[in-house]
């Protein structure tokens, strides 16, 4: 597998900013790890204040698409824009909040919820600068927004999977992002955490006008807040409002299992 953590150069032609003001945009993106395409001519965009879910069966290329969008992988062909810029030219990284797909933190060293969440301030504030009272206040607010305020001094590696995932969501919130990208953030987390998660996303979108791109199998918690659903299986099968998808007989909310079952049927 060719995993390239560096970001490579794009051609001069790619310097044009996005015309429609999208926060993030992929145009005709294809990607291959070497044995067959993982992404084939994929075009998606997320605008300000928009809440978009990206769904697809296992192995459909969702995580790969996120990594391409974030500049962690270079597309085989096509172009990507983050805030109108090529990923390698994009310097205001704090504008992009990212919650990775992970089951749990397995660390040797205890680190508190507050220590992990406060790291989210570093890209926003300048990593070389000292933390000020305003940073501590925003860190506290980010922990409260995912109901972890009372656990701020607890070591993250002693928390449940759901509480750990909320810690990473709070770290993304702490940088006050304009675009939040989340990869399976609510997989396997408890109902209370899911509700808190939904409330804090709604707050981020309503108050800060942020865009959200969410990869998840479990859309029940957020179904009523979604603006668009994108269904991916190597290429985009559907891109539109949830009502249109539900009109085809797929339920996002009432029966929690419906969407995953329907997605597996796409294989």
């Amino acid at each position, binding site marked *: 597998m060719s995993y390239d953590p560096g970001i490579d150069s794009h051609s001069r032609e790619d310097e044009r900013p996005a015309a429609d003001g999208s926060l993030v945009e992929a145009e005709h993106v294809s990607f291959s790890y070497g044995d067959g395409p993982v992404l084939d001519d994929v075009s998606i965009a997320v605008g300000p204040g928009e809440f978009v879910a990206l769904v697809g069966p296992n192995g459909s290329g969702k995580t790969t698409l996120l990594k391409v969008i974030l500049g*962690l992988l270079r597309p085989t062909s096509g172009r990507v824009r983050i805030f109108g810029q090529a990923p390698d030219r994009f310097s205001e990284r*704090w504008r*992009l909040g*990212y919650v990775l797909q992970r089951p749990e933190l397995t660390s040797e*060293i205890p680190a508190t919820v507050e220590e992990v969440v406060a790291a989210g301030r570093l*890209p926003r504030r300048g990593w070389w600068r000292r933390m000020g009272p305003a940073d501590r206040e925003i860190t506290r607010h980010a922990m409260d927004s995912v109901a972890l305020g009372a656990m701020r001094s607890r070591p993250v590696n002693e928390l449940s*999977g759901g509480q750990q995932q909320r810690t990473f969501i709070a770290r993304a919130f702490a940088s006050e992002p304009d675009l939040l990208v989340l990869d399976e953030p609510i997989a*396997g987390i408890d109902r209370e955490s899911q509700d808190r998660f939904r409330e804090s996303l709604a707050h981020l979108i309503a108050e800060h006008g942020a865009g959200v791109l969410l990869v998840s199998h479990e859309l029940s918690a957020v179904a009523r807040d979604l603006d668009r659903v994108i269904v991916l299986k190597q290429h985009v099968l559907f891109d539109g409002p949830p009502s249109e998808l539900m009109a085809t007989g797929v339920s996002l909310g009432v029966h929690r299992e419906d969407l995953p079952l329907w997605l597996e049927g796409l294989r």
Partner: protein
Amino acid sequence: MTVHLARLALPYPFELSFMQRALVAGLVVGAFAPMIGTFLVQKRMSLIGDGIGHLAFAGVAFGAVAGIYPLWTALAVSVAGSLGLERLRAKRRASGDLALALFFYSGIALGIVLLSRELNPTNVLVYLFGQILTVNDGEVITILALGVVVAAAILAVRRPLFAVVADEEWARVAGLPVGLLNNLLAVTTAVAVVASMRVVGILLVAGLMVLPVASAQLLARSFRGTMGWAMAIGVGSVVVGLVASRLWNLASGGTIVLVAAATFAVVALIAGARSRGGLLRGIGLRSAGSILGDSHSADTLPR
């Protein structure tokens, strides 16, 4: 220029000037080696100190053969090697432990080959096994200066460095200077290894970096607390190790690291007595904790 340190009126066993020099050098190394070790353990590179120690051995041998002060040649080779090692790891040309193995054995082989040209290779033994009781004033000042530089650099970047070692992929997406911070950690590790050579010896440097951290992570409940405990245990191990060395005429490098190891055994037993999972956590069997019952498991839903 020859510098002499003032002799203080300290009680036994630190009343003699050679013990006082040993104490100063030991306290500096005892504090900053575990400070760096905390980041290395979090990065799952506990043994890098050992790998760099092998490179330092090649540097010492080169200095001995070329007639240059071995601390400087060791510093040059170790810093260059640590940057190369980090580059191999970052580019994923070799897995972490394979990259270490490459450097381990190349370094030690180069050292042996160079020493075969040296008429009196026993001079090198003070670096291999450490002889803190024979450090002179100039060496104490060098160790002190290196220690201050390393500690200041690490303290200045402790927050972003924590963010990088805790979660490198996130740090990269967040735009933190991951390469710069990883290289800084590699270079400070090399400096710490070289500064610690005369105190505990090349073969035991990694022990002083990592063993206090192993105890500290059982005692502390935060990253900052772990670093503080590790430094305190490192300093304590040096003092107790030096006293034992003087009392029973034992090799000081060995007594210092044995005290650090014994501290871990005691801490792990106490932690184990307090919670059954604690002892397992102490010896690295973290996953076994879930077998013993994870109180939070009810919080998760099946996928």
